[in-house]
């Protein structure tokens, strides 16, 4: 019998205890993996390469203030700028105001928008149809699937910010990885019914030549408008999205807090199990020692047992988290879940590493105790 198979046998000797411990650790690690995945999505993932070449210019104070139309040409005149599209959050209702029927509705310039959003794949004839129909709409394929929309269908949005209820015809369906729940329509169409919106835009989305240009172009844009009545704030698309996350509050502290609680909880659970396990095997350890097992050997036996248990729990948790995230990002119930969230390999490795470390720490103290058992006392132990 090899050492490793001895460890494995011992780990799963008390099946119920091992199973309960694994499940307990598993659920905690599911949460930990989820938190790490959220952290990764928000703060590490740089986004798609196309997104990394886009900068967003908005009013320095708030998205609620529209920018003048002439800003667009000024931005376009900068070196390194490939295309500039005006974007406006319409924020209307579709059907009713239930949160599951909420999706992004953006008024833009169809001619230039597709150049900026080069990561959106639209069949050429659909793109042309959208650009030719002033009342046309371009929608994400996941959104179209959700409502069963087909090319040519008519839908009505009810304005809340804008006093207008645009009637739109679906002209194009785009694919994008990751998908996004969004609909785009012609800003000119909105201008027809809303006087004060004429020649204005909520923000400008600018495509620059390369990712290296992002920082330079951003500061140059803000410099142009430094002395204008409306100062701007320009940042990468990723930073722009993070601004929304920041409004939720101190998200970083929140995530760290939960992770801390979770790690500490699994440490307790794992240590508890190992303490129980060692206690019930006092005689056995004494016996092992009479057979010639050294202190080190006994110590590593229990430590490896703890690690094996924690890691199996961890694997369960990671699988669970991956499944949960898959479900969340593909269901219509969870509104606002970052749709590009996924459990990556580094996330998994980190979770497993945490599990193994916790297993090691929790096993060490009881194992050390066990390794120091006096053989005679141990053999006499009634447990």
């Amino acid at each position, binding site marked *: 019998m090899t050492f490793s198979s001895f460890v494995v046998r011992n780990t799963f000797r008390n099946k*119920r205890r091992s199973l309960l411990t694994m499940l307990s650790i598993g659920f905690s690690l599911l949460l930990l993996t989820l938190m790490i995945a959220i952290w990764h999505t928000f703060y590490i993932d740089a986004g798609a390469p196309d997104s990394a070449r886009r900068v967003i210019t908005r009013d320095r104070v708030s998205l609620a203030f529209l920018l003048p139309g002439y800003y667009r040409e000024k931005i376009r005149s900068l070196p390194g700028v490939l295309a500039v599209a005006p974007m406006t959050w319409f924020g209307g209702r579709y059907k009713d105001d239930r949160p599951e029927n909420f999706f992004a509705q953006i008024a833009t310039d169809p001619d230039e928008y597709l150049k900026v959003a080069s990561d959106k794949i639209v069949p050429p004839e659909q793109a042309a149809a959208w650009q030719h129909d002033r009342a046309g709409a371009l929608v994400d394929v996941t959104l179209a699937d959700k409502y069963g929309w087909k090319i040519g269908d008519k839908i009505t949005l009810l304005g809340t910010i804008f006093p207008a209820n645009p009637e739109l015809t679906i002209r194009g369906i785009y694919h994008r990885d990751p998908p996004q729940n969004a609909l785009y329509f012609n800003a000119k169409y909105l201008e027809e019914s809303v006087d004060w919106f004429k020649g204005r835009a909520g923000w400008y989305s600018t495509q620059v030549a390369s990712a290296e240009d992002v920082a330079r172009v951003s500061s140059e844009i803000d410099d142009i408008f430094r002395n204008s009545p409306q100062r701007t704030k320009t940042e990468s698309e990723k930073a722009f999205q993070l601004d929304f996350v920041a409004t939720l509050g101190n998200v970083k502290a929140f995530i760290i807090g939960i992770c801390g609680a979770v790690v500490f909880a699994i440490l307790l*659970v794992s240590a508890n199990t190992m303490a129980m396990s060692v206690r019930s095997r006092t005689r056995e350890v004494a016996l092992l020692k009479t057979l010639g097992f050294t202190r080190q050997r006994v110590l590593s036996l229990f430590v490896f047992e703890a690690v094996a248990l924690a890691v199996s729990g961890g694997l369960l948790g990671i699988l669970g988290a991956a499944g949960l995230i898959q479900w969340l990002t593909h269901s219509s119930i969870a509104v606002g879940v970052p749709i590009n969230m996924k459990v990556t390999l580094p996330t998994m490795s980190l979770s497993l590493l945490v599990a193994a470390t916790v297993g090691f720490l929790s096993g060490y103290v009881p194992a050390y105790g066990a390794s120091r058992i006096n053989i005679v006392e141990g053999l006499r132990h009634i447990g």
Partner: protein
Amino acid sequence: MAIPISYNVRNLKLRKGLTIMTALGIALTVTTAIFLMALLAGLKRAFVSSGNAQNVLVLRKGSEAELSGGFDAALFPTLKVLPGIAKDSHGDPMVSGEWVVVIVLPRKDGTGEVNVTVRGMMPDGLELRPSAKLIEGRWFQTGQREVVVSKSIRGRFSHANIGDTMEFGKGSWKVVGVFDAGGSAYESEIWCDVNQMAADFDRQGGYSSAYLRATDPIAADALKNRVSDDQRLKLEGILETDYYAKQTSSGAPIKYIGIVVAIIMAIGSSFAAMNTMYAAVAYRGREIATLRVLGFSRPAILTSFVLESLLLALLGAAAGILLMLPFNGMQTGTSNAVTFSEVVFSLRITPQVAGYAVAFALIMGLLGGFAPAWHAARQNILTALRG
């Protein structure tokens, strides 16, 4: 006959290490739940306490918030003479035309910029909001570039002390006073003179909203309808209390995330508690059999072990609440989904929150304790006595 509860207490004491570790595990789950509930309780209070039942908020028809509103100042005299409006200290109708804008201020601790609401108001605006009390300095004066800031704004941003100047709009504004809004949504605002502000933001000739003070809450309801029904005005009247109650939805993301986190942690803790209770039952096989021989019934054993698990959970709940108490009153902020600006609120561990936390822990105890207790009650007496 029931087994005395002191039996369970002594047993928990006997295996101190195991008890403490399991209870701490439950306590950690409880702290997380309390933290989230306290956040929501604080947020709810911020909005619920903001509205005054006698105040009617007037917005452009179809707009849902002060920020997206805006109507012609020429309508204001018509509003002023509507019946049912209370008189202010000068004997005039108590009404205030206001402008609300959002500005960006850098956080004091250097963690980025935050949107803050600036509210320009008429002198009656202060009288309309008796819940806001001046705690330092004086109120702003009409025609001056002066602002008063809320207590929490002073705490969270630099240049917000009396005598400091703040830069926004077209120039600098002098901070002349600090007010305490009692934890309401006004706690996140900066107040100043409406005309000065409109000039800075090129908004002359209009108001984003108006506040009317009715003589009593019943008159407020009538006043609200009178504003909405008046065809000349094309305006909408809303009770201030209703307006703020709707904004509580800003807490929705926290709520959903909180529920998911709490449930996952609770399942994990229940398994841990189950483990401990199974171990407790396993160690005491003979003891349980002896109890049966003495004449204690199966239901008595079952109840006793479930009770022991519940005791363990209660211990965890108590530890969890104690751990969280120091955080009571801690201030934090989230974005108001209606005004796009930050709303500041305090964590509030109310008796209700504590009650929910205990109930939450007891559920974990019950889930963790029932199966082992069942197992204990079903044991065969003879085999157990021999083992």
